[in-house]
Structures are given as C-alpha cells and as structure tokens.
C-alpha cells in the first residue's frame, strides 16, 4: 500500500513540477555553451558534435518530439517496472532517486529522502514553440555572459531578479566534484545558473547520439522479419504487386455512361431532380370556415368565384320585428293570393312577433331552405373561364369606306325607253357616245348616251342574244347574235368617214383563191352577203351558223371575233377573222356547254367559260394554259379586267367569283350579295370598278382595285346596290355595262328599259 500511495504522491508532484521539468536538449545546449571554452572536459567536448547536429536538424523538432513522446511512454513503462522493482531493491534507492530525470541539484539534495526520484512524464507540446522555451528566466535568447557582472542572472515571470546561486570557489567546486559521484553527469544550466544532474536515460540518449545510433534506446532495429508477402502460392493471397495502371485511368465504360447522361441532359430528356420546395408549406388541412372576405383557396379550381352569399336576415326575420314589418291585411291577402307562386312573395315567411326568443318555434322551412341553398351552391359557376373573345367584325379585313372610293354610280340618271321586250344585251361604242341594245322584240336600238335618244332601230328576225360593238374605233361595226346568225351591222352613227370606210371594206368579199374552207368549218358556218335591202338598212355581213348563237365577242384589235353556239358540241366555239372572212374551229373536243368566250385584252389568250369551268387557251401555242375552277354549277357570264390578270365570273347560283390569274385557279374572292342568279358582270376600263347584274332586279357596283405590285392582292369592296328595274317573267337585270370613260353604269332589264346610273 505504501508504494501505491507513494506513486500517487509522486504523480502529483510531477504535475506540480511540470514547469520545472526541462527539455533535455536545452539543458544540454546550455551545458555545451557554458563549457565551450572548457576543453579539458572530455565529455563536454563530446557534446559539441551533438550540438552541431541539433542545429542542423532544427526542422525535425516535431519528429523528435514525437519520438520523445514515444520514449516517454517507454519511460513510463519503465517507471512502472521501476516502481515494482523499488520494493525489491530499496537499497539502491538513492541512485533511483536521481536516475529518472533532471532534477535541480538542490532539490535532489534536499528531497533525496523525502521524495521518490521524479520521473517527469511531461507534455512537451505545452511549450513546443521556441518562443516560450524556458519560462523561468525571461531574458530570452541572449548571451548569458551579459549578466556575469550582476548578482542576478535574469528575471522570473513576476519580474523579480533571479539571483545567481552561490557558487563556491574552485577548490570548493573541485572538492564537491570529488565528493560527488554524480559529478560526471552534472551539467550547468546557464539559464538558471544551476547544476542539473542528467538521468540515465539522458546519458543513454547522449551516448546513442554520439555513437551514431538510433537515439531511442528502446527501438530495436533488429526485430525479427515478418514476411507478409511471400513468393509462395497461397490460397487467398495478399499480393504486394503494385496497383495496375488501368486503376489510375478513368473507366471507359463509365465515361460512356456519363457521356450518355450529359447528352440526355443536353437534349432535355434527363432533368435534374426538382428539389423539394420546402419554402411553401403545403396545407394538408385548410380552414373550412375561412373568412368570408377572402377568396376561397380551392386547389382543384383555378381562379375560383366565391360562392354567392346568402341574404342576411333583416328586420323582418327578427323574432320581434318592428310593427311596420308586421303584415297588414292587404299584405296578408296578397300573401294568400300568391300561394300558387310562392317565389313571387315578398318574404318566404310571415313576420311574426314573439314575446321572447324562447317562444320562437322551430322554423319549418329550415331543411328545405338549406337544401335549396346547397343546390344553389352546387349549380353556381365555380371558376372564371377565360374565353378568347373574337368579335366577328375583327376577322373581317379592314376595308376602306365606300365614301372614300368615289366616284362610282349611285343614282339612276336616265332611263332609255323604247324596247318592247326584254333587253338582253347592251354594248357601247368605243368613245362612249352611243349605246346599242338588243332586245327580244327583235330589234337593235342605238341610243345617244347624253340625252337618251334612240337614234336608230335595226329590225332583225329573231331574239337578239348578244351585241358587241367593235372596239376598234377605225371601224364602225356591231356584231349581233340573232338566232343562228351573227350580223355585222354598220350602226350609222359616229364618224362618217369611218362609216364610209367600213362600208368600203365590207363591200366586197375578199377573194378566197388560195384558201379552201375546211370541211369542218363549212359544215358549221357560211359567210353571207346581205341583199340590197339589208345592206341599205345597215347589215354588212351575215354569218349563218348551224346552231343558235348565244354570244359574240370582239378581240381588242377589232379584226377577230368569236361566236359561241352552246349546242354545237365540239364545234361550239368559232373564231372569225373579219378582214379575210375566214373562220376556224379552235377546239376539236367538247368540254361542256360553252357559255361565252372572251379575248384577253392584251395577250393572245382566249377565255372559254363552260358551265363549270373557265379555260384559258393560248391561241399562239394552241394549248390550254389554265383552268379556273369556280365551284359553281352554272356560269352565266365572264368579264376580264382591262389589265388581263383578273377575271370575274358570274354564276346562276348567285355567286360572283373574282379570279386572280397570277394567284390561283381558285377564286380569290367569292361574293354572294345577290339574291338570285347573276346574269352579267362587267369591269370598268379606267376606274377600279366592277358591277354585276342579277335576276333580283339589282346591280351591285363594287370597288375592285388591282395593284401593279404583284405582292398586293386586289382590294374588293362592295359599294352600292342599284335598284330600279322591274321584274318581268322572273328576270331582272340582263346586262351591265360601264361607260368607257365616265364612272357610269348601264343596266338593261327584263322590263324593256336601259338605265344609266351615275
């Protein structure tokens, strides 16, 4: 037990003396520096080598200290052993006392008996840095000989001078050396000016260092060899083989995998996981009876409409209503009267007075009213539905106002009266001074436009189907289709010189010497000379066809004209040349009932309208250029814009189709403003106007501007519906015609009149 208590006490002391325990190196250094001049001392000379090493290896301090720690532990173990051994050999106690560590000699001297030799187990890391080396003397790392002349050697932590210990004279020192067996291991500490006795370990250490051995004496460099990695083949081998090179190279397969992922991310197939939004707290539960003024947070419904609120009870509902709310006799009578229609009553109940709230009976309509309220809530709209609101007007393109598109005909200014039958057809002379009309009363009449005077009347035998004034102003000729004949008539108005010249030209048939009329044409048509009587009345040439001619049209040069016999099958279209009196049948195949033909105003094209389609033929190349598809059942009329790139087609099924030949073979625009089938269409030569006449006794004038810019589509604005003609036999307007220079429109009707609108 005694040893145990001793050991405990010693540990305590060690803790206490921590500050006192010195780094061995320092002590040694101090010793060495002190005894530098003392070359006689053999041992101290031995230390000098150590000192050099120390200085060189200043960077290895940590290693050393680590190593010291290890050695300390060893020391500790040794301590234990020594402690154990103290019991056994207590006689060499004295040696043991000094052996463990460097202890100041005075202490050693004074506590040789009282204390066990201190084996400092110190934490050298506590003052590891060189700054705080020896804290007993604060003078620092200075040459200590500066203090040689002073009684003190430095200052302690309190600032008090550390007095030099008394050192006897050389004799005393010598004697003490001689007496003291430990003197060989005693070194002088210049910092404190005290002698320090080195422990056995210190000495051992010094010896090891000096002998170029491993300083730690406990380290065994000759431990037995354990062959961890053998060359023998083992069942579960642990190889010492270095890692293969490929273990340092990134994996190719993984690289491909990563590449694929990168691609997927790039393409948007793979998306980073959306981090859970923790900021918005999702309501798992919501307040059922939320505040009324806030909109209800209904997750299912976007943009919800708050439910309609029930009417709040008023004074009438009170259990004690003011007397004015009580029903009067009249009100009661009314209440009773409305028993069949209770929803018309002012209140659903009769206000009654009760003396107290207690006396109020149960409300018999409660369940029903709740139910009705629930129904209301159930049926009321719950969400605002955003609908795209497009007004029909917005879809219609912005058209200019008709007012801005003047001039155009608006009022009937003149009525040309004189015909006794339907006026089927009208045509004007090139200057616009005269008008010719053909009627069912078997006459053609020439009118003066300015006055409405009928100048001439030509009697023909048959209904006049079509008249057409020759557009060439150098010839005074009118072509009129009457039954099977086409008459070329000199109207006898206009320039007299031209009339005379025309007569001159037509007087004699040009000689057909080198020309043989083809059999096919000969079967269809003959050019006849009029007899004297007919000549006198104006007829110049008569072309007798084999079927009824319905339409004639002049080429703009005035030499060629075409005639149409709808019943002629493949011989229904004929083109005649006036100057040579020849005719040709341009088509060998029948494409349907031909309604009318027109020449292109500028280019050698021929428009042929059959019942459903309009075909455009190139007359030079003799081929079909275009086929316009109207989508109509029955085309009635055709008009070509003076520019030649736009065609108007009127149909019996009320449609007016505008074709832009550059654009498409389908109608650019189809107008359905007429109440009945369209009979005639016409373009104005100068103004951007076109008109259509219909069986509903009206003519519609429209603005049709064609632009030179190919990218700009024509502007079509219906302008005015012109009425005035009377209905006769279900027929209304038969023909429409624009004045060649003025914005005036002529219409001919079934009522036997021609009207001029200006």
């Amino acid at each position: 037990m005694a040893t145990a208590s001793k050991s405990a006490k010693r540990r305590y002391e060690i803790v206490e003396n921590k500050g006192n325990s010195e780094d061995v190196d320092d002590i040694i250094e101090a010793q060495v520096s002190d005894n530098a001049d003392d070359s006689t001392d053999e041992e101290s000379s031995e230390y000098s080598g150590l000192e050099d090493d120390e200085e060189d290896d200043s960077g290895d301090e940590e290693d050393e200290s680590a190593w010291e720690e290890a050695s300390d532990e060893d020391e500790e173990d040794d301590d234990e052993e020594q402690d154990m051994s103290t019991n056994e050999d207590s006689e060499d106690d004295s040696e043991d006392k000094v052996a463990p560590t460097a202890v100041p000699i005075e202490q050693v001297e004074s506590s040789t008996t009282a204390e066990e030799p201190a084996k400092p187990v110190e934490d050298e890391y506590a003052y590891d840095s060189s700054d705080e080396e020896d804290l007993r003397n604060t003078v620092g790392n200075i040459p200590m000989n500066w203090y040689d002349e002073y009684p003190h050697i430095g200052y302690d932590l309190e600032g008090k001078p550390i007095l030099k210990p008394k050192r006897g004279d050389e004799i005393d020192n010598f004697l003490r050396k001689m007496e003291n067996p430990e003197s060989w291991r005693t070194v002088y500490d210049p910092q404190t000016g005290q002698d320090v006795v080195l422990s056995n370990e210190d000495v051992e250490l010094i010896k090891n260092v000096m002998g170029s051995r491993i300083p730690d004496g406990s380290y065994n460099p000759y431990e037995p060899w354990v062959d961890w990695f053998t060359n023998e083949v083992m069942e579960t081998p642990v190889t010492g083989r270095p890692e293969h090179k490929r273990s340092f190279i990134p994996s190719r397969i993984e690289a491909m995998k990563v590449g694929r992922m990168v691609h997927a991310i790039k393409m948007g197939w793979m998306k980073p996981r959306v981090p859970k939004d923790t900021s918005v707290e999702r309501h798992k539960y919501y307040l059922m009876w939320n505040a009324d003024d806030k909109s209800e947070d209904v997750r299912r419904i976007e943009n919800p409409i708050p439910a309609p609120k029930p009417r709040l009870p008023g004074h009438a509902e009170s259990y004690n209503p003011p007397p004015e709310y009580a029903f009067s006799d009249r009100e009661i009578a009314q209440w009773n009267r409305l028993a069949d229609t209770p929803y018309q009553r002012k209140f659903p109940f009769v206000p009654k007075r009760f003396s107290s709230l207690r006396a109020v009976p149960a409300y018999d309509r409660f369940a029903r009213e709740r139910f009705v309220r629930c129904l209301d809530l159930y049926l009321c709209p719950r969400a605002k539905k955003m609908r795209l609101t497009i007004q029909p007007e917005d879809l219609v393109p912005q058209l200019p106002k008709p007012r801005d598109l003047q001039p155009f005909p608006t009022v009937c200014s003149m009525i040309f009266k004189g015909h006794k039958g339907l006026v089927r057809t009208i045509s004007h002379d090139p200057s616009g001074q005269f008008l010719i009309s053909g009627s069912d009363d078997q006459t053609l009449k020439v009118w003066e436009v300015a006055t409405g005077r009928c100048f001439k009347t030509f009697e023909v035998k048959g209904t006049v189907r079509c008249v057409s004034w020759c557009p060439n102003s150098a010839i005074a000729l009118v072509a009129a289709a009457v039954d099977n004949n086409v008459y070329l008539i000199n109207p006898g108005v206009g320039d007299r010189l031209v009339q005379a010249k025309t007569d001159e030209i037509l007087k004699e048939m040009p000689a057909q010497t080198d020309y043989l009329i083809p059999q096919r044409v000969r079967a269809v048509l003959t050019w006849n000379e009029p007899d004297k009587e007919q000549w006198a009345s104006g007829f110049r040439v008569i072309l007798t066809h084999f079927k009824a001619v319905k339409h004639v049209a002049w080429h703009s040069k005035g030499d060629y004209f075409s005639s149409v016999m709808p019943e002629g099958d493949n011989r229904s279209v004929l083109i005649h040349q006036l100057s040579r009196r020849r005719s040709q049948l341009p088509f060998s195949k029948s494409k349907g009932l031909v309604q009318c033909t027109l020449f292109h105003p500028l280019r050698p094209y021929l428009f042929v309208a059959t019942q459903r389609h309009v075909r455009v033929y190139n007359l030079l190349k003799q081929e079909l250029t275009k086929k316009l598809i109207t989508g109509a059942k029955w085309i009635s009329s055709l008009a070509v814009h003076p520019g030649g790139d736009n065609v108007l087609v009127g149909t019996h099924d009320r449609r007016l189709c505008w074709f832009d030949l550059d654009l498409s073979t389908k109608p650019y625009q189809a107008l359905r403003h007429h109440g009945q089938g369209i009979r005639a269409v016409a373009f104005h030569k100068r103004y951007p106007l076109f008109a259509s006449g219909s069986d509903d006794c009206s003519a519609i004038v429209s603005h049709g501007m064609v632009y030179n810019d190919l990218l700009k589509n024509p502007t079509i604005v219906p302008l005015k519906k012109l009425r005035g003609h009377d209905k006769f036999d279900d027929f209304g307007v038969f023909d429409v015609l624009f004045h060649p220079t003025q914005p005036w429109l002529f219409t001919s009707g079934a009522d036997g009149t021609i009207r001029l609108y200006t």
Partner: protein
Amino acid sequence: MEALKKSMSTDERQIQVRFVTKQEKYALPEAPFSIPCGIKADLLSVLVNNLLRETRETGWEEVEFDFLVCGEFVRLPLAEHLKLKDINTEVTIDIEYLERFPAPEPEDSLNHDDWVSASHCFKDWILTGSYDNTLHIWKTDGSHKTTIPGHCGPIKGVRWIEITGSLATFASVSHDQTVMIWTVDLETYAVERVHIGRGHERSIECVDVDKNSSFLATGGWDHMLKIWAATSDSVLTTEIDDGENHKLSTVNSGKSLRRTPLMTLPGHKEAISSVVWTESNEIFSSSWDHTIKLWDAELGGLKSEIVGNKSFFCVSYSSLNQTLVSASADRHVRLYDARSQEGSVVKSTFTSHVGWVSTVCWSTTHERLFISGGHDNILKLWDSRSPNAPLYDMVGHEGKILCADWSNPSLMVSGATDNTLKIFRSQA
C-alpha cells in the same frame, strides 16, 4: 295683315333688325325694329310695305320684296336662316330688302316635230334646232316662220351670227359633223346655205359666235375645239386662212360652200359639251373630261383650266360679273370665278334640280340671275345669292330640257324632249 299681327302678338323671341335698301325709292328711316325671330320673307314683305305706307302719305301700291341677310336670300324662317349662317341674334341685324324679281310668265309653247335640242333668240327671232334634222325660225309672238332642212343629223346647236337690216346670218351644228352658216331674209324667209364647215370628225355639240360676229367656235365628240370664220363672204376666209390656205383659197374662189376650220385647238380628252366666247376674245369650253378650259382665241393657246369632278354638260359666262356657271352630270349647278387664279374652287353650288342639269344660261342684263334646265323637266330661275332655292321654277315641259336661252332679256326659252319650245316672258 292679320297674320302679321298674329305673329307679332305671339310671345316669340324677338330680334332687333334694321331694314336697309339700295333702292332709293323704297328707302325707310334707319330705325331698328323688334320682330319675332320666326318670321318669314312674305311677312317681312308685308311689314316693310306697311312701314312704307306709313312713311309715304300718298297712295302706296303693294310691292313684293325679297330680303337679304349676309348676302343670301331669306327663304327659311329668319331664325333658322340666321342659325344656318351662324349669326349672333343678340345684336341688331341689317336686313337688306329689294324688290322681288317678278315671276316670269309662260308665254308660248312652240311645237316641233321632234326633240328641240338647240335654241337661240335674237331680238324678235327665235332660232331652234330639232332632232329631226331641221332648223326652225319663229317670231317671239309664236308664229312659225320657216323650217330649214339641210342637215342630215340631229341639230345640236344654233346661233344667230348677226342681223343687219332684213338679212340675218346664223350658224347651226349637227350630228352630221358639219357646221352650217345660213343667211335668211327676214321678210321673205328665203334661206340660203352659205357655207358648210367640215372638219370635225364626229358629231358637233355646240357652237358660239364671238362678239364681233366674225368667228365661230365649235366643239364636239372628236375632242377638238375648232374656230371658223363666221362671215358669209368668202373673202375674209381666204385672208385669214394660212395653214392649208392654198388649196382652200382655190376652193373658195370656186364659189364652193365648203369651209374648213381656221384653227383647231386640241387639248380636251373627251367630248366638248359647250363653248362660250367671252367679250375679251377668250373661249371657255366645257368637256366630259371634267374640265372647263379657257382658250385664247387669237393665239390659240390654253390659258387656264378648271377641274371639276363630274362631266360638264354646259357652261355659261356672264360678262357682267365675270363668273361661270356650269351644269354637270349631277343635280348641282356650280358657280366658278373665271378670274380667280386657283380656278377650280367652286364658289357656290346651287342645288334644287333632281336630275341632271343639262343647260345653264346667264342673264344678259342682271348680273345675279341665271336660268338652268335639267332632266327633271323644270326650268329654274336662280339668283346667285340664293344657293339653296331658286327664285322661280318654270314648270311646263313634259320631257327633259335640252336647251335654254336667255339672250333676249325679256324672253327665256327652253327646248325639251317633249318636242316643244317654251317661252317665258321675263318681266324685268
């Protein structure tokens, strides 16, 4: 009188007016009167008559007055008129009164065989042209003097050139592209065709004579304005002719009737509908191409141009006030200032016709009066100060009026498609 009192007695709003006049004999003291604002012109006339009767002690005969406020005749109730003119009714308003132009009286109706398309009066003689290709000479008393065939197309214009003693010359133009100059002995009515002018390539629409009666201007459907010598003797013709002169002079010396134009003025793009020769030797020509052009007749150049937006059918020039009235292919008569440089500004528009106006004619004595005839069969007498209502409507025709003339200040004549020429006697 009762009506006046009645209207005075009603507590209507009163306005302060002052009656002024430029006619000395009707002058009134310059005192403002307070009259009800709803008063009309006839009551005003009664009022002024009463005032005049009070001022003149001697017997006073009723005179019809017309009233001008701000240069325009009062046709509506006075308040409305003022409102229309935007005049403040708080201040005293000057009302100018003048004797009303007396109503023309229908005098005669001269029956023709066909439409009467041209007419011209000169003193007591009326020359008419008809669609049956004949010319007629009438006396103003309605007696038919002679029928002159000769043209082979409907006559479109006639014009007396001069009457010296009993010998008169006149010109006629026709659809047959000729202008003919005739002489007539006004006692025996022997007619001789002096010249046939050929040169127009289409029908001629109009003819006019210059003030010296030496030249004719014609225009027609060939868009040309041609000037011809009007004299009946062929000497002058050869003198003046310079262009195609050589051949022409030989023709003339050969006692031929034929005559060619002295001058051809191209410029119009459409038919010329009427020509007017002014005092200062200028020619106004109206055309279907929406222009009225002013030509220098001596030099043969275009001087200025008035552009309208409708075809012009007729133009008339007044030498009294240097303005033009025009009839165009609508129901308005438009007044242009011939002197103004900007030209095309319509000074006022006279609207009362319901059909095309085919003819207009200024008075030769009154600087503000003109007549117009239209396709609505009515001949209207206008005062240029009354743009919204004519002074008088002269009803009687049963067809479109084609021509009208007021060359004789006391006679207004109009020919129409009802084959008659109506004569209205103008009182003033």
